[in-house]
């Protein structure tokens, strides 16, 4: 048990890879076996994450379950992992969603082995980002997450649709989406890479805790450029990379395509976890390392966040493709996350700032749940109707009442209905932002417009699918939501409810971590 305790994080991190390796050895046609091995493996990982949660002492500041091992000593980078409250919540989210996502993929029949292996590898990549305490390691896992996602979209994405590339070449929509996703993210990563290299060169280490200590006292010049300029450049490099991931307007354009064309499970994990990687990057790296620059430019970030909220909502509202509507909603919701972070950056250490940050992190968790849920539900209806066009639906409520109920519930959580989780986090963000400085209240007000449209698009979505006159063609052809699908939704529903009514169990942990951060 000692052994398990001392290496718990590594276990959690690498168990998915081990399971993937096991799957690689299974015969390709044993699809059921493969699916169940993957599911149980990911469930096991979730179990370990729960053990982690239970043993985590939220009162202790700093990182727990730390492990340091030699990795690449020549350049002073080590395998250094650990969790604090923020990363713990993210780990929980990831390990919770993965089994659900795998369960949701049971209907996939094409190359199941590769599909499951890729998902598990993706899980490791995401977990690695959240628990890394070494900058280089962070980058490694950041990049590792790209490749499985690329293939998942490219190979198992939606089969219909075509887009045009440069030179008039036509490619399938999923190829286009995956390519754009890859290139955008890599372009951002490039800046990140260069900035990380520079940091390594200047400070002689990649270890995050050490860096946070040392970084602010560095006054060396890099090739004759003053330190503040260097830090500013690095700040922007980091910011852009993470902004692309979040995504922050105007770096978001990869998202609608990627989310829409990805297979259901892919969209779930993309929206549920991957976007959080970007926000997490802001929290873990940008704020501690560049507090000055963060404060300086927080206004810009806030503006962009507000624009994300507003434009995201407006775009959502204008969609006829259900999945695209949900995709844009991610932009909208992540905008709140960013707003909270921007406020916290401006007002570091103040009460409002803390509240805003709490809200941001909670929103990350909440949006993970609701987005995954929404995408799944879209997937459910798509499987049955083979269309995502909202105009094709209508008045389905009597046909699929259970589904309808679940859809309404999840949508309400997404919308931020009080009593459900979305409300708590959005409220915290808004409250926190309001109390910061003088321009931020303005932003808050603007974001309210966004909220207004959020309501609009969600209600529109529900209306067009469930209410209104019944679209005759679905009569008799539409089956109710299956037990498996309900099982997938249940943990999400339960959590959304609990968090909405009694958020303290999570919020406490987050709060203490946030306080320790400043």
């Amino acid at each position: 048990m000692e052994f398990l305790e001392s290496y718990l994080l590594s276990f959690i991190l690498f168990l998915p890879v081990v399971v993937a390796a096991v799957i690689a050895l299974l015969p390709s046609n044993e699809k059921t076996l493969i699916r169940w091995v993957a599911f149980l493996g990911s469930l096991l990982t979730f179990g370990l994450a729960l053990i982690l949660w239970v043993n985590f002492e939220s009162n202790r500041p700093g990182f727990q379950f730390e492990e340091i091992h030699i990795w690449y000593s020549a350049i002073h980078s080590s395998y250094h992992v650990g969790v604090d409250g923020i990363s713990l919540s993210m780990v929980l989210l990831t390990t919770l969603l993965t089994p659900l996502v795998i369960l949701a993929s049971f209907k996939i029949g094409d190359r199941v082995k590769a599909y499951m292996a890729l998902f598990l590898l993706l899980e490791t990549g995401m977990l690695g980002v959240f628990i890394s305490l070494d900058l280089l390691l962070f980058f490694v896992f950041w990049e590792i997450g790209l490749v499985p996602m690329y293939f998942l979209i490219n190979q198992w994405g939606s089969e219909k649709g075509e887009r045009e590339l440069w030179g008039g070449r036509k490619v399938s929509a999923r190829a286009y989406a995956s390519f754009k996703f890859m290139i955008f993210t890599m372009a951002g990563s490039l800046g990140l890479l260069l900035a990380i290299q520079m940091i390594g060169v200047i400070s002689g280490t990649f270890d995050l805790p050490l860096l946070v200590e040392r970084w602010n006292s560095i006054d060396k010049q890099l090739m004759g450029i003053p330190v503040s300029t260097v830090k500013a450049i690095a700040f922007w490099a980091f910011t852009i990379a993470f902004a692309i991931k979040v995504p922050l307007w105007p770096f978001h354009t990869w998202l609608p395509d990627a989310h829409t064309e990805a297979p259901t499970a892919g969209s779930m994990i993309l929206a549920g976890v991957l976007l959080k990687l970007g926000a997490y990057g802001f929290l873990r790296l940008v704020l501690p390392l560049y507090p000055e620059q963060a404060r300086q430019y927080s206004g810009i970030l806030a503006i962009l966040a507000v624009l994300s909220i507003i434009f995201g909502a407006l775009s959502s509202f204008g969609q006829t493709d259900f999945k695209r509507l949900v995709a844009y909603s991610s932009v909208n919701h992540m905008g709140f996350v960013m707003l909270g972070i921007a406020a916290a950056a401006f007002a570091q250490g103040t009460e409002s700032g803390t509240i805003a940050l709490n809200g941001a992190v909670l929103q990350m968790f909440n949006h993970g749940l609701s987005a995954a849920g929404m995408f799944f539900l879209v997937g459910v209806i798509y499987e049955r109707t083979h269309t995502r066009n909202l105009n094709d639906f209508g008045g389905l409520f009597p046909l699929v009442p259970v589904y309808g109920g679940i859809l309404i519930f999840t949508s309400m959580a997404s919308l931020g209905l009080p009593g459900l989780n979305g409300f708590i986090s959005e409220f915290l963000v808004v409250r926190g932002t309001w109390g910061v400085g003088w321009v931020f209240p303005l932003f808050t007000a603007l974001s309210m417009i966004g909220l207004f449209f959020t309501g609009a698009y969600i209600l529109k979505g529900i209306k067009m699918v469930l209410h209104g006159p019944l679209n005759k063609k679905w009569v008799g052809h539409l089956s109710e939501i299956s037990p498996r699908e309900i099982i997938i939704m249940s943990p999400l529903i339960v959590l959304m409810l609990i968090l909405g009514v009694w958020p303290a169990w999570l919020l406490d942990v987050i709060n203490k971590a946030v306080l320790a951060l400043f």
Partner: protein
Amino acid sequence: MQFPIISVIVFIPIISGMLILLIPGERKTEIRVTALAASAVALGLSILLYFSYDIEIAGYQFVEKYTWLQDLGISYYVGVDGMNTPLVLLTGIVMFTGVLISWGIDDRPREFFAFLFILATGVFGVFVSLDLFMLFFFYEIAVFPMFLLIAIWGWKVTREYAAMKLTLYLFVGSVVALVGALAMYFTSGLGTFDMIALEGAAFPVVFQKFWFPFVFLGFAVLGGIWPFHNWSPDGHVAAPTAVSMFHAGVLMKLGAFAALRVGIMLLPEGAKFWMPFIILLTIVNVVYGAYIAMVQSDLKYVIGFSSVSHMGLVAMGFATLNREGMIGAGVQMFSHGVMTALFFAVVGMIYDRAHTRLIPELGGFSKKMPLVTVAFIVGGLVSMGMPGFSGFIAEFPIFMGVWRMQPWIAIVASISIVITASYIIRIISKVFFGKMPEEYADHIHDVTVLDKVALVLLAGILFILGVYPSIMVPLVESGVDNILRLLGGA
């Protein structure tokens, strides 16, 4: 007396090559099996050597020295240190996988393997040489078999042209360096070709500044430095698969390594003077090479130019003359060697089946050759410098080293990463996924077991090095420390 492991590794190929020549030409199976056995022995010994090297002690180990010509101070003098031990291992790996991939050569396999093995001996010999004369001796031995291998077994369309161009180019480079080496020999006044002794010769600075470009660039021609890289893409494309694997995987490293050993280590002041200029050449390699690779439609040309680009990174790493850069260069030599061997092996497999290498005409290979696809993806990720694989382990320190020297160069060079990513993705999505053209869809069958063994070995190494860099980096570090000492602790 300890087992002369280095000499055995060096001479096993050529001795087996001579033995193979004695086998009657029709007995192809015996020929192949002998070749495989010999390469397996060489690989085994090189692995043994690799893990027997003691990093604590560092310095040159497993040294053997025999006088060759007293009067001129020429000796047969070999030893391994942190820089060349990985390269010896690399050669063993490429030799072994090369034989596996060449199993299907049907036209005079006897002569093919004999010449290939002569090449292998030459390569091994250069890597382990501690005597300047001996280095040249083996260097030239490595050049001429390429001519025959490409001209006889290469791609019919360009093989004669490519073979002649390659041989003449490389020969020019090496003789230019030879003149420099002779100048060093006489100027040192030591009357010996012993490189370790020459390291301490303290040549006058003027001398070093004059001769460094000749020596460094003469060898770097084989390393593919711009603008003397021209022989490489044509050579790559025209050569038969195993020869391409050797060529890009090992031979180009020979050039970079000799440039290091003879140029940087023996003329350190000259190196310090010239490197700020030479690094500009390497930038062209890195960025331009990637760009040209991107616009090719022949798959093999893409890989060929990609080699030019990646070798540019090696040269760039050396050009930084600092710790991180050189560590990265050392690892990159190994990583790229394995990666490019893998690439060429895959290209060969595709060409053998589809009889075309034009990307527009290829497609859908993942369905017929799944393992090959995965292997190529691994190679592609290495090429892009994706973390988790050896390419990242190699490229990251190189960039760090460049940052220390001139930050803007790092930024410019990193453009190549994006370009590389784009063409790799393009190839993967078109050639492996996408639709397989009708013309040959029925003739394509999966690769043989031997091919798979080779691919798994190569891809596995790339992965292992990527997640566990300590398996190689400390070794390279110890070699780099020695070089830095010669440079005066720069």
